């Protein structure tokens, strides 16, 4: 198993190098001129040139690239111009915020989508099946920012049940000492129950928004895969042997239907992590997606490169985890293969 992990990581290296080169070139190809942008509204030509020099953007592209890779090798992602902070520190602070939100959203989504998918598959054509179809269609066709805004409107503005959409914690609580970066865990470690409650209540609406959006692929995939498995011969045999329907479905069919669902889950997770920009915007969430988009808008090279690189590493790791999970769920998938 370890050799397999090692091998997989080795294979990832060329793609990471590719990512470094491509993001470097792509950010340089963006039309904006960061020097002009950061020189401010009142800048003269000389002022813009001064800034360009200070940022090192007057050097030839190849020299900029070597400087960049050299910095990367020393763990330095450069500094963001829009926020004024080192990119590595920003990503370290922001990634847990996005990850916590995405994970919770995914958990909520799985809790609803998988039973719904299974039920829909066992009773095709029934009301459960229709419910499944309606929820998933609605979930996937409502844009996330819309669902987010509606939830804020109803639960915060109208009903007042939910706290103000002001990020990860109520403004008057201070953040727990960072251990994992996940506030739900850190507040518990710090035994600060009030802050825990605040963090959790801040999370509910954005997590629900993400869950509604990610419900569709998971539920549809569960349903389709369950349908295929339920019509297979071993299920027929199990039924013929007089096993109770619950045992047949849960023990035999569901486990076999899990593989494609896991694949979908991994795709949905990595997609959500990078693409929940809109949710982060709506809920003022200090996550990684909104950070990258803001950087892109102001042609701030360093954070964009840092973001893409982080995402690439995350994809590699995630795929590895999924491959290992395959082996756990289905012994037929040989890891050493």
């Amino acid at each position, binding site marked *: 198993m370890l050799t397999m992990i090692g091998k997989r990581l080795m294979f990832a290296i060329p793609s990471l190098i590719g990512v470094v080169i491509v993001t470097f070139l792509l950010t340089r190809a963006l*039309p*904006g*001129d*960061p020097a*002009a*942008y*950061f*020189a*401010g509204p*009142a*800048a*003269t*030509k000389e*002022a813009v040139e*001064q*800034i360009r020099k*200070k*940022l090192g953007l007057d050097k030839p592209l190849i020299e900029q690239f070597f400087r960049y890779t050299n910095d990367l090798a020393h763990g330095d992602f450069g500094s*963001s*111009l*829009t*926020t*004024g*902070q080192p990119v590595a520190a*920003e990503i370290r*602070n922001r990634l847990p915020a996005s990850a916590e939100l995405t994970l919770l959203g995914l*958990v*909520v989504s799985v*809790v609803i989508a998988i039973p719904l998918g299974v039920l829909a598959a066992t009773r095709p054509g029934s009301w459960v099946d229709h419910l499944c179809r309606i929820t998933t269609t609605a979930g996937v066709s409502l844009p996330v920012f819309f669902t987010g*805004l509606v939830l*804020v*409107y109803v639960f*915060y*503005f109208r009903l*007042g*049940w*939910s706290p*103000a*959409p*002001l*990020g990860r914690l109520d*403004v*008057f609580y201070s953040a727990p000492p960072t251990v994992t970066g996940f506030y739900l865990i850190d507040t518990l470690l710090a035994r600060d129950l009030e802050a825990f*409650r*605040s963090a*959790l*209540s801040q999370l*509910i609406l954005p997590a629900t928004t993400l869950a509604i959006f990610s419900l569709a692929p998971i539920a549809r995939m569960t349903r389709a895969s369950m349908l295929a498995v339920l019509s297979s011969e071993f299920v027929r045999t199990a039924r013929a042997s007089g096993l109770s329907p619950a045992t047949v479905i849960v023990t035999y069919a*569901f*486990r076999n239907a899990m593989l494609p669902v896991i694949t979908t889950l991994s795709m949905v997770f990595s997609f959500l992590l990078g693409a929940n920009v809109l949710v982060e*915007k*709506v*809920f*003022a969430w*200090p996550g990684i997606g*909104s*950070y990258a988009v*803001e950087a892109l*808008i*102001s042609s701030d090279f360093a954070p964009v490169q840092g973001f893409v690189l982080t995402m690439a590493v995350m994809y590699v790791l995630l795929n590895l985890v999924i491959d290992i999970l395959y082996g756990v769920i289905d012994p037929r998938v040989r890891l050493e293969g």
Partner: protein
Amino acid sequence: MKRRDFLKSVSGLAAGAALPAMPQVISSAYADARSETLLIVSEGGPNNLDIHGIGTNVPGYEVSWNCYDRLISHEMKTGPGGVPYYDRDKFKGELAEDFKIDDMSVTFKLRKNAKFHDGTPVTAKDVKWSLDRAVSVGGFPTFQMSAGSLTKPEQFVVIDDHTVRVDFLKKDRLTIPDLAVIVPCIVNSELVKKNASEKDPWGLEFTKQQTAGSGAYKVTKWTAGTEVIMERNDDWVCGPLPKIKRVIWRMVPQAGNRRALLERGDADISYELPNKDFQEMKANGKLNVVSLPFSNGIQYIGMNVTKPPFDNPKVRQAVAYALPYQKIMDAVMFGLANPMFGAAKDKATEVAWPQPHKYNTDMEKAKALLTEAGYANGFETTISFDLNFAGVNEPLCVLVQESLAQIGIKTTINKVPGANWRTELNKKEMPLFTNVFSGWLDYPEYFFYWCYHGNNSVFNTMSYKSAEMDRLIDGARTAAASGDTATYDADVKGFVDLAYSDIPRIPLYQPFVNVAMQKNISGYQYWFHRRLDYRALAKG
């Protein structure tokens, strides 16, 4: 993990998630904190706490304004609607307890009890070092200083520990006002020098992350893009002690949420909302909405006069008669702007800026002028705008496009991303565009110097060049410096008239600064920089 265990733990989580949805129990400490704290929500936050830094953005100016002191500041007067408004012409000492203006210099006596946040007294060498820094670091601060003829370190002379003299390079009416803008702030020189390096002699890296001033507030926590927390400096001596103890400034990118936060009473102040929201909030009366015109600011349609067809004044006049001014005021600005069009025919030009021009929407006249210019069948062109301000610019350009089509001018709309806008402006190639310009220093000749003078600054977006215009602008500047009112008035009227007859840029309206706040917030002041001054605000 076994599937059953997994399901169990998941249902446990779901049950846990249902609990905190109940309304929060508010502890008393929490309520106390609220009454002394001001919660501001806005779209963007600072990227640098020091206005001398490279590329410090506008929210950064607000931090600098409240956390640093300047030698002098403006007095307040009553502005439109009874709102306190900075008095352009009256100055008071801030760090200086007294100052004396002579013919070619100004001498400041510093307050003896003023201290920086770390307790070191503010002395003349800090003042000298800070002003040297402002004229030397390059970029925006140096540029702003030069607008008041402050360009050389030799101009700042230490006389004794508490006396500083600023020598004038030449007579310039803008020198004193320029010492009261945000840039010439006084920095704790010893502290910053300790943290400077050979590569960074002015310690910009250090002051980027923390405030090193003597101002009424100090930044205690800053999470870029998320929040800024400022605490009151209880030892501040340059004015009455501010009432607000703590300012929490949160970035909330979604305008709808900022409005919801205000209406629910969770946030105290917000700005940067769509005009429609401000207008609705004004109408329903739950909040105080203050709307004041930008001093010395105008949104305009510019035309590149170096290239056909806009090199022809007739074409420019035709466009000026074809713009849907009133529609823009109603449908884009929702009335939250001062019209800059349609002055009465017989109205005399005033010695003031901005003032409305005499063009009005008149399609017949526009068509006639266009025919006269030889474009009876119209022409095709593009109209560009800055996407950063798409909320206003996009509907505005669509209205303009629709209106110009009626006289045969076919326009394509070109949306320029914010990062690219300045580059495009600098190239001076866009034929037709809309933009805003507003000057910190509220003087007509200042505006014209940047926007119409033949030295072709970046704000002369039309590349307009006219010997007569240059003569009038330079004349007004000289006259202002020497106090020759008659020549000054004649020159100002002259350049306004010329700008309106040649019409390289067509003013549309003077936009408003809108700030919405809870009813229990008082003390809002309008400043030339249009950001908040926390020192005057009070809650409850």
